[in-house]
């Protein structure tokens, strides 16, 4: 299980680095939001990986919170970015 931990931590670390590169490069705000959403998923995966290898349940509540936090962040940024008006406001 230790070899699995090393391999997965390396892979997840490279993925997080690539995502941070896209967040810093990203031409529009929505690119950054998409990359941030995936970064939250990577953090959830890393916490679950550590819990699975060491067989403890202390970080499980953080998983629940993070799975909702990414949603709230991306929806609020997408809602207040230009171009996302209400359908009712467009129809009137």
């Amino acid at each position, binding site marked *: *299980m230790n070899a*699995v931990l090393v*391999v*997965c931590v390396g*892979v*997840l670390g*490279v*993925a*997080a680095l*690539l*995502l941070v*590169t*896209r967040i810093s490069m990203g031409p*529009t705000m*929505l*690119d950054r*939001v*998409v*990359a941030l*959403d*995936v970064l939250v*998923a*990577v953090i*959830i*995966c890393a916490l*679950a*990986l550590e*819990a*699975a*290898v060491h*067989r403890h*349940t202390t970080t*499980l*509540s953080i*998983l*629940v919170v993070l*799975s*909702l936090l*990414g*949603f709230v962040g*991306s*929806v609020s940024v*997408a*809602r207040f*970015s*230009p*171009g*996302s*008006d*209400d359908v009712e*406001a*467009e129809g*009137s």
Partner: protein
Amino acid sequence: MSAASTATAADVADVVAAVCLVIGALLTLIAAIGILRFPDVLTRMHSATKPQVLGLLLILVALGLRLRDPGTIGLLCLVALFQLVTSPIASHMVGRASFRAGQVRRDLLVVDELTDVLPHEQQHSTEREN
């Protein structure tokens, strides 16, 4: 006999969990490469779905196989349910906002049925709303 069979069952569960962990981590890496390399918000959203749904579900299955506790598995099902419910909504809102803000590479689209349907003055709707 029964002790030996339960030991092998635990070993099989551990091996399956390890395989799920590695596949989930590799899916995350593939999605990160896609997000870095793809040219467009919509194509980046296409690759962003892989760790959000399949990679996360694989890793949660691996965690459930390692812990083997009913209460914990209920909590993991809750995480998976939240992710499955919320990620389509977030993707929908991001895609809608990017298309209406004109940040989509229209030369890369194969089918574009939305531009004809959108009202032409929708750029000014923010000012009308205020």
